[in-house]
């Protein structure tokens, strides 16, 4: 029974990780660098939602899409100011500049909102009891919300012109250019989607636990592990990897102290990079 309970927690955590890992994979697929500021983009999304819920006192269903849109704008802004001038630079330079961006975003959040833990709404979320398992309504919201976003992303990538162009660019950017695809437009949409997904992940993480300025940095490791596990560059791999990492991290608490959860993600990442760097579902090296 305890195992089942942990699997449920793992799916909730996995939904959050998945939303981050999708963005990391998308950005890697199109721009070819590991985006280290992605966790902090999740933090930004979570805190933007806090403004709506906490300061303006709007209900979460209204605030949620606005926070996603706000974070998308932040993503576009970061790309314009920091990454676009470096577009032809080597992936290492991009990576380092994204570490710098991560530090800036985190510090900015800390300056504005302070270092303390915050919550969206006070009160207890009374869990349902189903066959002896405890499931909180918020957890159901998180899993269903993540599922809905993943379905929307799937439809976007397979049914729309821009979505298909995004997949094409991820496949082969040179051929995309000589086919007449405006790859800068594709990059713009990549940031919109990656940042919005990150914001959703950050908000869900804030609902499930608490908000603090390092929440995103802390979850970056499992997010990266998830995208590597599924095969970096592959969206569906990221979904699979995210859920797997979430469940494995929670199950590990059966054997070792919960404090070592990040170490579990790190261990999996190292093993994957040594044994099967292409990821379980293929993807790129």
């Amino acid at each position, binding site marked *: 029974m305890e195992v089942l309970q942990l699997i449920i927690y793992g799916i909730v955590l996995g939904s959050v990780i998945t939303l981050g890992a999708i963005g990391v994979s998308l950005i890697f697929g199109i721009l070819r660098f590991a985006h280290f500021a992605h966790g902090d983009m999740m933090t930004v999304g979570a805190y933007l939602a806090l403004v709506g819920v906490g300061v303006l006192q709007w209900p979460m269903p209204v605030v949620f899409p606005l926070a996603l849109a706000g974070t998308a704008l932040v993503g576009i802004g970061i790309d314009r100011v920091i990454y676009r001038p470096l577009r032809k630079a080597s992936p290492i330079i991009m990576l380092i500049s994204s570490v710098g961006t991560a530090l800036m975003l985190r510090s900015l959040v800390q300056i504005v909102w302070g270092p303390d833990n915050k919550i969206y709404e006070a009160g207890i979320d009374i869990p349902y009891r189903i066959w002896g398992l405890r499931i909180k309504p918020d957890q159901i919201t998180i899993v269903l919300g993540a599922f809905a976003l993943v379905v929307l992303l799937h439809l976007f990538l397979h049914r729309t*012109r821009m979505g*298909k*162009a995004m*997949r*094409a660019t*991820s*496949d*082969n950017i*040179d*051929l*995309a*250019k*000589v*086919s*007449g*695809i*405006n790859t800068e437009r594709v990059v713009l949409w990549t940031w919109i989607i990656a940042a919005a997904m990150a914001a959703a992940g950050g908000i869900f993480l804030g609902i499930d636990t608490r908000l603090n300025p390092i929440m995103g940095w802390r979850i970056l490791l499992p997010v990266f592990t998830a995208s590597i596990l599924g095969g970096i560059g592959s969206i569906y791999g990221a979904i699979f990897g995210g859920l797997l990492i979430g469940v494995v991290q929670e199950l590990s608490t059966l054997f070792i102290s919960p404090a070592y959860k990040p170490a579990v993600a790190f261990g999996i990442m190292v093993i994957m990079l040594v044994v099967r760097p292409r990821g379980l579902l293929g993807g790129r090296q």
Partner: protein
Amino acid sequence: MSLLTVQDITGGYGAADILHGVSITVNPGEIVSIIGPNGAGKSTVMKAVFGLIRIRKGRIFFQETEITGMRPDLIVRRGMCYVPQEYNIFPSLTVQENLEMGAFLRKGDPAKEIAKVYDLFPPIKDRRKQAAGTLSGGLRQMVAIGRALMLRPSLLLLDEPSAGLAPLFIDHIFKQIQKINRLGVGILMVEQNARQALRFSHRGYILVMGTNRYEDTGENLLGNREVAEMFLGG
């Protein structure tokens, strides 16, 4: 007025030049082949035309406009499409989606153009929902050429269209290229299968060490003893 004029271009990747003064002309309705030994800069000429490498000297005109160093998507917009030798399809996209990407620049439904491509290459029609990366080499080449035809270009650049194909298939691809040409599309291709390529070409250029060596009609080049001995394997 010629379709494409390459005037004495010099350039290459990075610091080293690969082309040392190459000139090529394609007239409307022509099939022109560029042949020559490995490392002669054949593919580099194509990349130069398409703005993918650095050109230090010389100019390139398409119809009446100078396109030297122009951005690839702007060249495509003017009616010149390019099929690279390798990595010329989107492997994870379906056959149909590959063709749709070829028409990305044109708004509106590409169904009519897609139907035309399927008429030209019936075998890929049955595979239209299959990921292009899972196709055999011959079918991939059909998808690659089909993608480049989606914008109804007036000039098509083909980099080694027969590379890696089974001998039976090579003839088939050349016949399809001829068919495309008869629809009014000018064709400039680089070919390793020199003999076959010249047989299907109006004119040919032989490139050696990044400069023009011979230039004649396909027939004359095939009949030229010196050319045959040096470049066509006797």
